[in-house]
């Protein structure tokens, strides 16, 4: 009964929005993450013990961040949804093998990165290596990403400018090599530590640093081409 009550309480709080985490910056990796890890471990243990309902809590807790990772890597809203579904399914199938050496979220995000990579490989270079053009129209509400609703206080023009700018940045990200793209997304957009990235990508710490350095320089050059002087 305690288990059911725990799951129920968590689901209510997640649906109410308590569990939604903001996009990570470097400052996010603090107390909240430690709490998250502890709670994840609890639900992971329940899943491993044969409580599928506990997995729903983990889905609700991590789906948004996973979706953002997938979207920033693939650059495609629909593909990101598919990638997240596949990643959660893989996680569900293999959660019994999760030993808890790393945080569950690190393990989970590593899965979504792998699936996003596979999706990019399947898509080939058709979309991801297209030259970035400032003439590309921003993706609208119907076919593109649904951004968080802007504040009512912000002027409409500012909103449009901001959207356009963000789309250009995304286009520049899409133009990067896959390895550079994923490390930029994990470090500079999602704010994972070097150690976490090492765990997710399975590469040494030195490689993380050097790859990140090259990725940032490449993105800087790309943004300069699109936006002019930074």
């Amino acid at each position, binding site marked *: 009964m305690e288990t059911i009550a725990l799951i129920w309480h968590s689901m209510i709080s997640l649906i109410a929005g308590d569990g939604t985490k903001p*996009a990570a*910056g470097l400052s996010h990796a603090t107390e909240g993450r430690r709490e998250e890890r502890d709670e994840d471990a609890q639900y992971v243990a329940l899943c491993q013990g044969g409580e599928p309902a506990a997995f729903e809590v983990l889905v*609700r807790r991590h*789906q948004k961040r996973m979706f953002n990772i997938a979207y920033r890597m693939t650059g495609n809203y629909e593909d990101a949804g598919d990638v997240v579904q596949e990643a959660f399914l893989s996680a569900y*199938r293999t959660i019994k093998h999760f030993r808890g050496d790393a945080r569950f979220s690190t393990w989970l995000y590593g899965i979504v990165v792998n699936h996003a990579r596979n999706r990019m490989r399947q898509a080939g270079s058709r979309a991801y290596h297209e030259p970035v053009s400032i003439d590309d129209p921003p993706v609208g509400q119907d076919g593109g990403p649904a*951004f*968080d609703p802007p504040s009512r206080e912000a002027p409409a023009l500012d909103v449009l400018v901001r959207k356009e700018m963000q789309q250009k*940045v995304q286009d520049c990200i899409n133009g990067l090599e896959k390895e550079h793209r994923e490390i930029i997304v994990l470090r500079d957009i999602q704010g994972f530590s070097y150690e976490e990235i090492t765990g997710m990508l399975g590469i040494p710490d030195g490689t993380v640093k050097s790859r990140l350095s090259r990725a940032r320089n490449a993105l800087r050059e790309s943004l300069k081409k699109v936006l002019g002087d*930074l």
Partner: protein
Amino acid sequence: MRECGDMEDRFTAYLDGYLETAERRIVEEHLSTCPDCLHKLEELKRTRAMLADLDEIDPPPDLTEKILSRIHEEEGRKAGLFRRLFFPLHIKIPVQALATVFVVVLAVYVFRSTLHETANLERPSAPPPAVETVPHAAKGEAAPAVKKETPPEARPESVPPKPAPPPAQTLKKEAAGPPTTKPAPDVATQEAPPERAYKAAQHPGAAAEKAASPERHADDLLSYSKAPVPPGAGRVRTRGTTEMEEKGKVAESAPMPPARAAVPDVRSRVAMMSKDPGRTAIQAKTIMRSLGATRIEESTADNVSTVSGWIDASVLGELMTRLKEIAAVDEPNSSLASGPKSSFVEITVRGYGNNDGVKPVDR
């Protein structure tokens, strides 16, 4: 310039706060003297800021439902029909228990039903006496007389010496064990020799086989040497009902056994008790053979075995003695009726379950 290149490599760690204090100081000293590197660092900072400023994207509203739906599908796939039937212990255990009980009951039933048949198939190790032929009395005057009176060809089919029972009835009688009313010795003497003769006649080419198993076919060979080949010999005889039908036909066409008409209807009964009636019956049969009995027949059903045959009256006493050696003889229910020369003896061996009050003593 080389120094600038080294510095650029450190900018990433510098911006992320991953440089040691000493390295950090080196980078800052270089930046204070190199405007180009400082400019690059500023661009990198702005790039990072733009990335960090990207809005968080809301996933599709139905994403959670889609994910959970796929997980439920996965669960359903795992729990296939077999698993659904047998995985819950409250179903699995009773089903397995019932299956076990069923198998055990079936095994016991099959074992019990085949036990007696197996015992009947066993043959005594001692070969049968070579003198098993017609009864002693038949060797005399009666046989030729009967043969002369009723040659097989001349006898009308409508008036057989003893109408053979319908095939099914015959089978039933054999399978049902000892008949409640024992058929008269005449019946046995009418049917048995012609059948053996017919069998031998049908398979003259099997002489080698019979020679290899003399115990089994000694009677047939001897009878064949004395019986005429019935009409229809050479036909392929089938088993079961067909055998019974042909048995009747042969009984009609074969010559009458010579002894029966001259033998008075004397009948001895020996009741025995044994743990294993089938085995005891086989032993009794062997004893009868060794004492020169003829037309020995054996039947088993319901844990009661019956052995009958014709035996010389002079060895009836010895027969009783030897029967007592193999199993308990129920003397109150036994009677020896000695005829002038030969006597029909019927030995009934019952299992302990059919005890009539006699203490069973196997020896």
